[in-house]
């Protein structure tokens, strides 16, 4: 088990290094000269240009810039300085990461706490009016990208009903709209997935057996159906992590939240490459980490996966013990 976790963590390192390289390469080949943006086109001398260029490290070759960037990142966690404000990207991100991370995690939590129970109810009452309504609503929600959800939430709850605040993050009430919007289409998709999985599980033989032996329905569901249904449902959370995180980027700009999303948007507008590189890298790291946690949780929930990663020696020992027990019984 430990070996599996370590292996997964180690695999993250090359992945993240490649991510840095990809993003750096993309922004490196972006047209538009940042030195010109800073100095303003037209009114600069060649000396000033060369000096600024050297100061920002932009006079080096592509490979030189890339290696410096990665070296600074790995050794000092330094993501460079913003071209326009000259504030270090990492210190700015330090303030903003918690905001965005909280928002996204809450989004995932909302997705699961709304989607899971409703999906189960929907499956248990298959073909009832409740089921039809829930599936139809979930299908409509699934067709809404985060920004559409955010805009409509803003219109309905902020402008027409005036029940919820629409900007900032001062109290818990401010969180409601952004979190629900960030969860966005995930709620609908997750609800449907839960329903499908649950329907599959309750058709299994072991559920029939449990019912046939006269078990109370509540316990059949709790003990037999729920646990088996949870295993695939934990895994699919991983697939939503990226969606919710990137959804929250757009949502932040709509609700004026000072998180990584607004920072990234500012960077895009000003062609401030260090900001773009740094933010994308941090978001990728967060997504990878959350995915890793989901995978590990999965291994803990599912005994089959856990068994796969027990060491051969331990497995042999367990088998031996089992054989001894069996012989003892004979």
């Amino acid at each position, binding site marked *: 088990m430990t070996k599996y976790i370590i292996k997964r963590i180690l695999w993250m390192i*090359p*992945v*993240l290094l*490649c*991510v840095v390289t*990809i*993003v750096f390469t*993309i*922004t490196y*080949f*972006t*047209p538009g000269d940042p030195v010109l943006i800073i100095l303003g086109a037209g009114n600069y001398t060649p000396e000033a240009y060369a000096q600024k260029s050297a100061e920002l490290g932009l006079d080096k070759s592509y490979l030189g810039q890339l290696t410096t960037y990665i070296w600074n990142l790995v050794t000092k966690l330094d993501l460079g300085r913003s071209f326009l404000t000259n504030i270090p990207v990492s210190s700015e991100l330090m303030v903003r990461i918690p905001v965005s991370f909280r928002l996204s995690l809450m989004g995932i939590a909302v997705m699961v706490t709304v989607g899971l129970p409703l999906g189960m109810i929907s499956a248990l009452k298959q073909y009832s009016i409740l089921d039809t309504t829930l599936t139809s609503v979930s*299908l*409509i929600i*699934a*067709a*809404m*990208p*985060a*920004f*559409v959800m955010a*805009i*409509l939430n*803003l*219109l309905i709850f902020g*402008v027409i009903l005036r029940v919820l605040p629409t900007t900032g993050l001062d109290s818990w009430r401010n969180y409601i709209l952004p979190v629900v919007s960030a969860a966005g*289409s995930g709620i609908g998709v997750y609800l*449907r997935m839960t*329903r*499908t999985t649950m*329907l599959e599980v309750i058709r299994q033989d072991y559920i029939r057996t449990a019912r046939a032996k006269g078990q109370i329905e509540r316990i059949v569901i709790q003990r037999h159906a729920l646990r088996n249904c949870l295993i695939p449902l934990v895994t699919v959370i991983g697939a939503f992590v*990226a*969606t919710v*995180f*990137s*959804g929250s*980027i*757009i949502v932040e*700009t*709509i609700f004026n939240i000072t998180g990584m999303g607004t920072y*990234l*948007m500012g960077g*895009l*507008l000003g*062609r401030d490459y260090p900001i*773009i590189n740094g933010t*994308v890298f941090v*978001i*990728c790291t967060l*997504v*990878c980490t959350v995915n890793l946690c989901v995978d590990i949780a999965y291994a803990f929930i599912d005994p089959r996966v856990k068994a796969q990663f027990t060491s051969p020696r331990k497995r042999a020992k367990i088998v031996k013990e089992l054989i001894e027990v069996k012989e003892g019984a004979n």
Partner: protein
Amino acid sequence: MLLMTKQGQEKLARDMAEIAKKKSQWGDVWKRLFRNKRGVLGMGIVVLLLIFVLGANLFTNYDYAVQDVTNRYDMPGREHLMGTDNYGRDIFTRLLYGGRISLMVSMMSVIISGCIGIALGSIAGYFGGRIDLVITRVLDILMAIPALLMAIAISSALGSGPVNTALAISVSGIPHSMRIMRSTVLSIKSNDFVEAARATGSKHMRIIFRHILPNTVAPLIVNSTLQIGGNIMAISGLSFIGLGVQPPTPEWGSILAAGRIYIRDFWPIIVFPAMCIMLTVFGFNMFGDGLRDALDPRLKD
């Protein structure tokens, strides 16, 4: 039986053809698709949308770019079906022409990512071994970057415009279609007819193109249909944040973004583009689901 005459063989071939015609696979698929209520609904939405969007000039007398300052913020009515925007432009017209861009860009990126995904997926699935490992690993890394972020980065590098947006979005679609292709090829590869083809000395290319690819059509159609919906979400998202397709070219996301500041005073400029995006994505999702159920009844949920 073994010593069948030539006439006998011909008769058998004709009978087989007759049976095949009567119970053609695609006929069955159509029947199953039409039995699925949601699939039919989705198909209806998609067809209606295509009619409206492709025949945009038949349904409206206005120009999407002409400004009419005397008729700003008209409420929806007989004159303007969905009202007019802050420049007095007819919102309905703008949405129709905007739909052209959204659909075109989305289909373009499905085709781009589909072609690359099919090539990589069939190579990885068919040859397996080290090639498979390398391709899968590289695309795994690509997948570590959330699709929207990837699209944002690439489209900021390439600049705005329909073609660049299509390219930006297709990059993040490649891993997905590659995976679907790979798993389909893997399952087809183990069939007897592939082994038979190999036994008769067919080259790899011939096996892939003649025997394997035709059998992957069904999952590919389903995947592309579902991807069109997802791509429309991505395109409108990009345009919404000011990348992607930019004004004055109408696009649903950019219309929504431009109308954002009027949210407190004039609702039609927000609600109608949002409805367009939702309805279109909904339609393609339902149609894709219906197709999947019709093409492969085992996957029905």
